[in-house]
């Protein structure tokens, strides 16, 4: 079985899920990579919970400023039309339903859309950060992640075993192998990665997958 898409290609596929005019928050980790794949002309505005709207790609060596970072403390570049604000307004935007899409990493997603992304149980301590606010307030939640753990365990499961970030909050999962929607009937497989079969995806997924009528291979 193939290992599927690289992290960069997962980020690229996630960027394709965004629409013109949307305000989008990119979570810590893999999601921040998405900022590198959003075309200028797309008219997507990026939101960061540490108090910025309208930033661009991650900064190169020569343009770094310690006062201009994303939620992962990576150096940012600014786009025209940016704005800065405090953390209360940043989360007012999230909780108040103004952020259209939240792209988040995950440890586990359940078939009902439960998300676990802040703590692996055996570490005994984790960081919640802004993720509980994002899943509660954002218009839709896209999870980006490797389809399974490095040792091959399911990340898409019937019930999460790690502590939850939120219940019934995920809309779409974009992984190294597939694009899957969470629907009232269950997990709906919409796309498979190039050279990945439906059987590959099912073998790497805990619950049974439903197949979309227009199931197809990802265009990258």
């Amino acid at each position, binding site marked *: 079985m193939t290992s599927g898409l690289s992290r960069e290609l997962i980020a690229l596929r996630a960027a394709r899920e965004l629409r*013109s*005019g949307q*305000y989008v928050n990119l979570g810590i980790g893999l999601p921040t990579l998405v900022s590198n794949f959003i075309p200028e002309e797309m*008219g997507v*505005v990026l*939101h960061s919970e540490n108090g910025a*709207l*309208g930033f661009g790609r991650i900064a190169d060596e020569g343009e770094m400023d310690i006062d201009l970072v994303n939620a992962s403390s990576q150096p940012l570049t*600014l786009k*025209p*039309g*940016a*704005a*800065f*604000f405090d953390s*209360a*307004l940043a*989360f*007012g*935007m*999230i*909780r*108040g*339903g*103004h*952020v259209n899409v939240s792209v988040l990493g995950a440890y586990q997603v359940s078939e009902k859309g439960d998300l676990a992304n802040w703590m692996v149980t055996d570490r005994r301590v984790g960081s919640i950060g802004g993720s509980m606010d994002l899943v*509660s*307030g954002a218009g839709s939640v896209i999870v980006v992640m490797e389809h399974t753990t490095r040792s091959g365990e399911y990340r898409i499961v019937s019930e999460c075993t790690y502590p939850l970030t939120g219940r019934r909050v995920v809309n779409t999962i974009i992984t190294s192998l597939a694009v899957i929607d969470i629907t009232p009937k269950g997990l709906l497989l919409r796309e498979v990665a190039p050279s990945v079969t439906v059987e590959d995806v099912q073998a790497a997924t805990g619950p049974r997958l439903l197949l979309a009528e227009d199931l197809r291979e990802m265009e990258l």
Partner: protein
Amino acid sequence: MDKVVSSPEEAVADIVNGSTIMFGGFGVAGIPFTLIKALYEKGTKGITAITNSPGGRLEDFDLSVLFRKRQISEVIASYPVYSGKVNAFEELYLKGEVGLELVPQGTFAERIRAGGAGIPGFYTPTGVGTVAEEGKEKRTFGGKEHLLELALRADFALVKAHKADRMGNLTYRMTARNFNPLMATAADITIAEVDEIVEVGELDPESVVTPGIYVNRIIKGEKYDVGFE
């Protein structure tokens, strides 16, 4: 992304009868006169107006014009009447033609902020022991009684700002800021009337007060030389 619309008429075109509308402004400052005029000309009826004051200080331009045309049926306000003068609101209120929910001003501001920030309710010490506590749940924090107050939201917010870029980032001018930035966050559709529209990139990102995420439509306001009373 260009949120500028070409006319006040277009900006208010989908404000239907029975809409709940927030109107920015305090006294004489920061009132969206052009949008009020457009709403007057459109003739929308049955409006619930959420506004610090229902007008009267500049009665040819402020919300008074909508009361005189019987367009507003309910008011949620903190400062509905002025001493020494009966405004158009008060005339209709005393005839029973307009309803009023009277709210202490700090509670009014906080309820709007809460509406925009996804906070459905909060506790405040303001108004305990007065008419403002009527019908409200009381709860003691730190040995002191507080009232439970609920968030306010609207279908539309009509706000007045100083400058806007085409993405909807707004700045304000002096005390014309008042309730405008709060209301901009708390409506399904926020329409901003501004003194000046600038290109994207011309506003200092540090000085933007209302980030564009809160703004749906922008119009350049007409110039009103209202003067003081």
